[in-house]
């Protein structure tokens, strides 16, 4: 009766390729309902459901890695290698967040309502991030960003009675709405330029010559503002330290890895699909060539390079002055975005592999560092660097594990962080962006100083001597995160192969 526009009209069978996402949505709804029946201080039902759902989604994602791109749900969503990678990452991050929220005093404190909904929201956010990673159309791009943002606002304000938390939430909402509005304007410019909403069609229109470089550049910068806000790149980072400090720490941990990775996923898909066309690009003598030809303004990698340098330098320099560990980690996470952006502007498959590898490693080590903060906050009631004085004698193994995370964040061998950074630098060198490589490398040296401030407090500064025992659950998850941080620094071939397969199955890069 009504004609459908898309070549592949959405159908129920599409969900066969959308299993992890479907599982996450169902999990969200079930956990929400289970909360109605939750009794007692701790909502065991929603917790178990959300954790189980994330794990099932994870298992489903691992067992069904897509081999090649496949457009589903009316061509609005594409399931490919890149999406396959992120739909493994996000349920994993969700599961870890749920696990360590369970024993966190900030979320599960004695008199806080709506405990169960928290777990449901984590599952919903994981779903939103998965969709961000597979959006193939401006509509889904915008909607998925909004879903993740909305859940983020709610979670940031979760400690309703804490002023800091409320302020964090409000700041997040205001900055978020502004940048989302700017992005929407950019998207509408793009639509006006091309008359298309699907990424692939937009590229086709641009290639057909319907592109005005100046307008395209403006549209691109506007879109970048929205995505830059999600990944917290300078100058769209203003919300980041306050929100990270004010939000409950488990939420901060989730923010520092989840939306960031999702933002990168979306940035990669959007820019690599719309602004890159197939074929080998130009390169200087001896340098590797990009795996695609730039459509539109030719200098946008340089723009990103400047953004990358400013982001990492600013993050590192400001982190030097911090005394609150959450703020310190917030600025350090800004710096890490700078490193990741280096990989983004390479426009090569190897650069993408480096980004994905780093995101995986970063998720593990950063969650580890934040879990350490949560676990100690439960016991010490604070998160200033000085609170950790003498920790090496009070809880030697915990201090040691934090040391592993710190070294990994700095990028020293033999930890996973070093390998991740090395892959990034390797591609930068291979593409002959030497100045960028030198700035990035020196930034790593700067970061050493503030990470070692935490080490210094734990090991050099004398403090209380009474032994400190953590929640068993926290210790267990810490071990679960520290072990791969170290192990991946010694042997990482399987992970590298996994990442390579994801990039090989990526629909973008002009392919």
């Amino acid at each position, binding site marked *: 009766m009504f004609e459908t526009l898309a070549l592949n*009209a959405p159908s129920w069978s599409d969900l066969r390729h959308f299993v992890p996402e479907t599982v996450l949505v169902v999990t969200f709804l079930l956990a*929400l309902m289970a909360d109605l029946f939750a009794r007692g201080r701790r909502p065991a039902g929603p917790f178990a459901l959300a954790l189980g759902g994330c794990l099932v989604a994870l298992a489903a994602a691992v067992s069904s890695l897509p081999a090649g791109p496949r457009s589903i749900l009316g061509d609005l969503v594409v399931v490919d290698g890149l999406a396959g990678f992120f739909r493994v990452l996000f349920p994993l991050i969700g599961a870890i967040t749920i696990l360590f929220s369970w024993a966190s005093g900030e979320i599960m404190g004695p*008199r806080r309502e709506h405990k169960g909904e928290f777990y449901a929201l984590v599952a*919903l956010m994981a779903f939103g991030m998965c969709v961000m990673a597979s959006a193939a159309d401006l509509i889904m791009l915008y909607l998925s960003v909004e879903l993740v943002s909305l859940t983020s606002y709610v979670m940031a304000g979760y400690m309703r009675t804490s002023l800091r938390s409320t302020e964090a939430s409000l700041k997040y909402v205001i900055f978020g709405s502004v940048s989302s509005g700017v992005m929407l304007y950019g998207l509408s410019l793009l639509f006006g330029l091309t008359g298309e909403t699907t990424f692939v069609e937009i590229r086709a229109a641009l290639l057909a010559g319907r592109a005005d470089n100046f307008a395209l550049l403006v549209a691109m910068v506007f879109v970048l503002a929205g995505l830059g806000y999600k990944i917290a790149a300078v100058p769209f980072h203003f919300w980041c330290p306050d929100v990270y400090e004010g939000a409950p720490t488990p939420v901060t941990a989730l923010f520092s890895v989840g939306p960031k990775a999702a933002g990168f996923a979306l940035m990669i898909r959007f820019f690599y699909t719309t602004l890159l066309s197939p074929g080998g690009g130009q390169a200087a003598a001896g340098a590797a060539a990009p795996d695609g030809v730039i459509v539109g303004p030719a200098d946008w990698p340089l723009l990103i390079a400047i953004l990358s340098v400013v982001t990492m330098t600013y993050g590192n320099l400001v982190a030097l002055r911090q005394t609150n560990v959450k703020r310190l980690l917030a600025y350090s996470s800004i710096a890490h975005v700078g490193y990741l952006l280096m990989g983004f502007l390479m426009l090569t498959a190897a650069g993408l592999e480096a980004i994905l590898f780093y995101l995986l490693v970063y998720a593990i080590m950063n969650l580890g560092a934040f879990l350490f903060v949560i676990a100690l906050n439960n016991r010490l*009631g604070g998160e200033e660097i000085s609170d950790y004085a003498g920790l090496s004698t009070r809880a030697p193994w915990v201090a040691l594990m934090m040391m592993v995370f710190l070294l990994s964040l700095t990028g020293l061998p033999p930890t996973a962080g070093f390998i991740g950074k090395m892959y990034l630098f390797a591609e930068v060198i291979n593409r002959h962006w030497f100045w960028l490589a030198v700035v990035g490398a020196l930034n790593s040296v700067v970061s050493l100083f503030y990470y070692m401030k935490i080490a210094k407090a734990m090991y050099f500064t004398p403090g209380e001597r009474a032994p400190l025992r953590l929640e068993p659950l926290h210790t267990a998850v810490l071990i679960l995160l520290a072990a791969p941080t170290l192990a991946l620094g010694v042997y990482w071939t399987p992970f590298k192969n996994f990442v390579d397969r994801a990039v090989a199955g990526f629909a973008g890069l002009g392919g």
Partner: protein
Amino acid sequence: MSGDLAFYGFAALTVLSAFYVVFSRNIVHAGFSLLFTLFGVAGLYAMLAADFLAATQVIVYIGGVLVLILFTVMMTRIPRRGAGGRGLDRFVPAGVFALLLFALLYKVITGTPWAEKAPVSADPTTARLGASFLTDFVFPFEFVSLILLAAMIGAAILIRDRRPAADDGAGGAAAPTGEEERS
């Protein structure tokens, strides 16, 4: 020509009332002025043959959102007049930035060959939109419902009694709240 006249009329209504929303120091006046802004936008939609969108704009934004805003403004004891003056030190950079942005957008809008579509007929769009939502765009349609659900949960969580539930246990012993009020 009457079309052009209507366009400029609606545009002027939108822009001028929007200015008033931003610059008025009386929050009630600002709220009422918003009515004209939203209405002007609805008019622009209608001129683009987006009849459903225009109607939605009127029903949802003017009939729903704006009324809620006015309710909130009237029923709370926010000072009606903005507190304190805006410092010139903030106004000037903001103004310069806004002007620059305007110049940029003006250049983009006037200097760009847009991908223009042929004028569409002014047939009612509601039926086709509804069909689209349940066929081609069923996924975003359902997706939006999730966003709304998340927003509802957020509202439920954020807009609750500020006092830490004093009545949650049968014992009712008011535990010290210091642990939560670290700020």
